[in-house]
């Protein structure tokens, strides 16, 4: 069985600055962006509304609660230019780290030979039911098992699907993210370049993971959007990986994620963020979980110089359950901020958030988590926990769990721990023949084990393990 593969048409030339002028995130840039797109009128109207909001807002500042522990002073949007094309040429020499992807039939998902190695030099393979690849926020290849396509499953470029499945995309796109949330949300809704649309019809099960690989060139911009919709009783696993061409690459990613789940659906969504260590990463991520549906959302945040992620899971109908597993592993001067909300908006729902961070060098993490229980959401079972392990004197972890409960028959628990590596543990390991470096690695691995134990899919565990291994320093 060979999967149909649809490499996207590409323009034959890169942006011509003499023709277009140097593009910026300003009125002129937005006008050029709109002019060059072929898309439904509803979408253009929405983009214009969002642009008006973008222009009316200021950049977030430290007086905003969500940005109080964020440092945006080094961020200058004028350093970046928007992607104004719907598809772009990719030089064959673009040094993008790709993950080797093989489908069930053993062919490459993109239909062409994709050879890739992780930075640690190991080839990995993953059997998939479908895949999407993008460069600088533009999808360049998409593939889907034809048997699933025949059942109505859609895996494709969001820009293409906004044309080909206009009604479906219009119904769901940006319905869970408020453009007024902050200036980054407005910018993303106004100028999202492309993205990833996955739709699974009623009672269809996607047997193997759908793999998304997003690459962003050094100094480039990625304004992509992920929209995943599972109808009643549908089931899917989605593995999203992001990467830059080098460890120290710069870039600006301003993205959105929307996971929409109807009754009885089951979604496993894994997001491995590994942008270059000079990239800026901003994202609004939302899940809406329906009656008796379940969501397992695993986040691994490894890359970027600065990241600010606003992650919310809305449990909107009785019986919805969500489990969020977060891994943050930082080094150098990285500064990662995660604001999470688990919102119980219906009775008999369960949510379980576990974030674990390991910090090296001068890095900093901020986790600010909130369990919100709406009036009437009785029999809620909410749990949140954040553990931080600091491997240096100069790292810093801020952990701020919170509860806002408006119902009187609930169980909500939260907790947080922060600490250094226990020297006695290291001493014990050394007394058993391990070097200090090996001992610290073991402790870090053990610290994350609780997350690994929660991930049932071996390929996902492998991907996460490889990402963590790349981040571990040699300790002396």
């Amino acid at each position, binding site marked *: 069985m060979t999967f149909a593969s649809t490499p996207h048409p590409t323009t034959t030339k890169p942006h011509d600055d003499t023709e277009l002028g140097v593009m910026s995130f300003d009125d002129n840039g937005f006008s050029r962006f709109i002019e060059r797109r072929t898309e439904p009128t509803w979408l253009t109207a929405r983009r214009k509304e969002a642009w008006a909001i973008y222009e009316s807002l200021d950049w977030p500042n*430290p007086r905003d609660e969500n940005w*109080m*522990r964020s*440092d945006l*002073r*080094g961020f200058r949007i004028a350093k970046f230019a928007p992607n104004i094309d719907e598809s772009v040429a990719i030089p064959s020499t673009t040094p993008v780290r790709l993950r080797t992807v093989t489908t069930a039939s053993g062919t490459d998902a993109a239909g062409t030979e994709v050879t890739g190695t992780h930075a640690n030099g190991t080839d990995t393979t993953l059997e998939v039911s479908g895949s999407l690849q993008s460069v600088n926020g533009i999808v360049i290849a998409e593939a889907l098992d034809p048997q699933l396509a025949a059942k109505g499953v859609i895996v494709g470029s969001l820009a293409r699907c906004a044309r080909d499945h206009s009604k479906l995309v219009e119904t769901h796109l940006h319905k869970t993210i408020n453009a007024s949330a902050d200036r980054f949300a407005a910018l993303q809704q106004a100028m999202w370049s492309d993205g990833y649309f996955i739709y699974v019809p009623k009672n269809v099960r996607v047997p193997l993971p759908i793999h998304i690989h997003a690459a962003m060139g050094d100094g480039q911009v990625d304004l992509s959007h992920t929209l995943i919709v599972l109808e009643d009783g549908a089931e899917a696993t989605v593995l999203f990986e992001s990467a830059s061409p080098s460890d120290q690459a710069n870039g600006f990613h301003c993205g959105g994620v929307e996971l929409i789940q109807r009754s009885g659906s089951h979604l496993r969504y894994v997001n491995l963020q590994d942008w270059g260590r000079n990239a800026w990463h901003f994202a609004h991520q939302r899940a809406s979980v329906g009656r008796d549906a379940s969501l397992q959302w695993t986040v691994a945040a490894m890359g970027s*110089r600065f990241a600010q992620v606003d992650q919310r899971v809305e449990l909107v109908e009785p019986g919805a359950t969500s489990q969020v597993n977060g891994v943050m592993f930082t080094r150098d*001067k990285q500064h990662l901020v995660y604001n999470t909300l688990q919102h119980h908006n219906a009775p008999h729902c369960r949510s379980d958030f576990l974030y674990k961070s390991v910090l090296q060098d001068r890095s*900093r993490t901020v986790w600010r988590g909130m369990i919100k229980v709406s009036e009437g959401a009785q029999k809620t079972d909410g749990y949140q926990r954040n553990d931080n392990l600091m491997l240096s004197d*100069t790292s*810093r972890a*801020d952990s701020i769990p919170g509860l806002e409960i408006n119902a009187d028959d609930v169980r909500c628990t939260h907790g947080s721990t922060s600490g250094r590596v226990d020297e006695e543990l290291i001493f014990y390991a050394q007394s058993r023949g391990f070097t200090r470096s090996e001992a610290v690695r073991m402790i870090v691995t053990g610290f994350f084990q609780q997350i690994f134990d929660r991930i049932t899919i071996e390929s996902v565990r492998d991907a996460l393990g490889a990402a963590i291994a790349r981040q571990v320093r040699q300790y002396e």
Partner: protein
Amino acid sequence: MLDYQYVCERDELPENTPKTFEVDQRFVVLINLSGEIFCIEDMCTHDGGTLGDGQLDGQCLVCPRHGAKFDVKNGKAMCMPATEDTPSHTVRVDGTKVFVALSDS
């Protein structure tokens, strides 16, 4: 050997007015204290926020949020709620130009 990096011209630093600069992806505050230039990290060790918008109280820079004070000459935390010193950096004035060597801490 200290690695000095050019930061600004001396006349960009009016007396007793803290000013923030980015040096090697770190933010530092330069203070012209009655003619002598000092440099400390632009970070309050209490909450990790910035100090650059703070006012001077004698030779201390006062955090604009919770009132922690840091000695601009050595970064020493002088009062609650800060209990840890903020890093201080070495300044060299070469004619009209101001250079800073970042400390490792």
